[in-house]
């Protein structure tokens, strides 16, 4: 098990946002996290990556306890979190954003350069716009940059938080194709999405979150077949 979270409890002051969440991700899987707005999905992945601290519960990543660690330390262990809203360095160039993605091995020039080549190969548009400031690009391009930056760290686990937010349908299709390709090449992915339809198409397994609790979990076919999922999230 690459990632194991056990009984995570998170509150913002007096408001309980995560109420005893447990989940697990096996190497190589593409797991999706579904649920309505405000269910706690972003809070959960922020807790996994260390941006937030859980009040109770444990998180294990790659065999190590990480629930007390700083987010940059967790990132260095191989967990790359592509946040909701992308968190790009908008005043820095595309190339600088990507290079900073590899900050943890900045001393290894070759590794950074080959990483850049790999990402430019995956997203050719980024090579074109390498010297442009990140803030000047379109939504879809920014999302590609965000994913590219997360991949520069050569992570073991890639967490994507609502990558399709605000994007045009055609770009969304392309995005999910890319996520599927990345996963196909062996990357373990945790995909947080409101777009249940597209996520379930590419996922192996999924969890459904509602009001801070896991209400359903199962394989893709199990979730596809489940009446509540079909009604609430697939509109069928």
């Amino acid at each position, binding site marked *: 098990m690459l990632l194991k979270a056990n009984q995570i409890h998170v509150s913002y002051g007096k408001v309980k946002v995560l109420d005893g969440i447990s989940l697990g991700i096996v190497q190589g899987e593409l797991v999706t996290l579904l649920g309505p707005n405000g269910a706690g999905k972003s809070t959960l992945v922020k807790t996994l990556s260390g*941006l937030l601290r859980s009040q109770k519960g444990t998180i294990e990543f790659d065999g190590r306890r990480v629930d007390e660690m700083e987010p940059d330390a967790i990132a260095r262990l191989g967990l790359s979190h592509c946040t909701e809203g992308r968190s790009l360095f908008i005043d*820095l160039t595309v190339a600088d954003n990507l290079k900073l993605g590899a*900050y943890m091995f*900045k001393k290894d020039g070759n590794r950074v350069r080959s990483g850049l080549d790999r990402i430019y190969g995956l997203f050719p548009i980024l090579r074109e716009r390498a010297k442009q400031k990140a803030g000047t690009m379109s939504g879809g391009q920014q999302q590609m940059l965000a994913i590219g930056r997360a991949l520069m760290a050569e992570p073991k686990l890639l967490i994507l938080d609502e990558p399709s937010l605000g994007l045009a349908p055609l770009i969304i299709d392309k995005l999910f194709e890319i996520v599927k390709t990345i996963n196909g090449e062996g990357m373990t992915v945790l995909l947080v999405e409101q777009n249940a339809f597209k996520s379930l198409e590419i996922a192996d397994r999924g969890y459904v979150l509602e009001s801070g609790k896991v209400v359903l979990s199962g394989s893709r076919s199990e979730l596809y077949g489940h009446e509540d999922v079909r009604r609430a999230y697939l509109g069928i």
Partner: protein
Amino acid sequence: MELRVLLQAIVSGLLTGGVYALIGVGLNLIFGVMKIINFAHGSLLMLGMYSTYWLFTFFKIDPYLSLAITVPLLFLIGVIIQKVLINPIIEYPENNQLVLTMGVMLFLENLALFLWGPDFRTVKVSYVGTVLSLSIVRVNLLRFIAFAGGLLLALLLYIFLKKTDMGKAIRASSEEREGASVVGISVKRVHLISFGIGTACVGAAGTLMTPFFYLSPHVGHLFLLTAFMVVVMGGMGSFIGAIIGGFIIGLTESLGAVTLPGSLGQIIPFSLFVIILLFKPTGLFK
């Protein structure tokens, strides 16, 4: 007004501006990265001055050469202050942080008062009073060195921020704390280094001014207000804003001093400050 007087005032203002620019970029870095309003900035300048004074008095080290000691020393002091006092309250409301830095200011000033007394002190180097003549304008050598030193250090800081990995990490962290954390940048470390550098800058400015300015425990007050005017007018978070702001304040101060009697001359930089903010509340370059 005589042309000579006007030109002299302009030159004088530019020379002062160079030092203000250095003080400004240091304060700007601290605010830009940590969003902290550092009221202790003036007192840290004072510490820079006193360090230079004691190195000169006890070890006969030339003030300009003592930069090699005072800069790392002030960097270290900045790092310690950040780690012990500021870091614990980094997530607290701005007002609380403000009060803390004010407390540091009071502590440092009164510590200096206690250790070294209230008397004004000066450092007299052998080459004090050397004046360079450029046609009708006379340039005080000490002020010129301070100006050149200030700009040089500001340039070094600029290169550091633009070209080095840590510099880019600092810039990234100031825009996007979360984004920096998730790519493996230790934002805690960035804060330490930024506060250290900001303190080193203002300490260096103090060292550069020691040969021609008096020292006292409260000398920091004079420069604190100027520092904030420079940074706010230039745009908080803008490096180039701090530089330009430094020169604008330096020039207007100097021009004010030759056009209006007594300390009425201060009206010029203050009025300009208010006018600029009326039209551009976020500062010139933001």
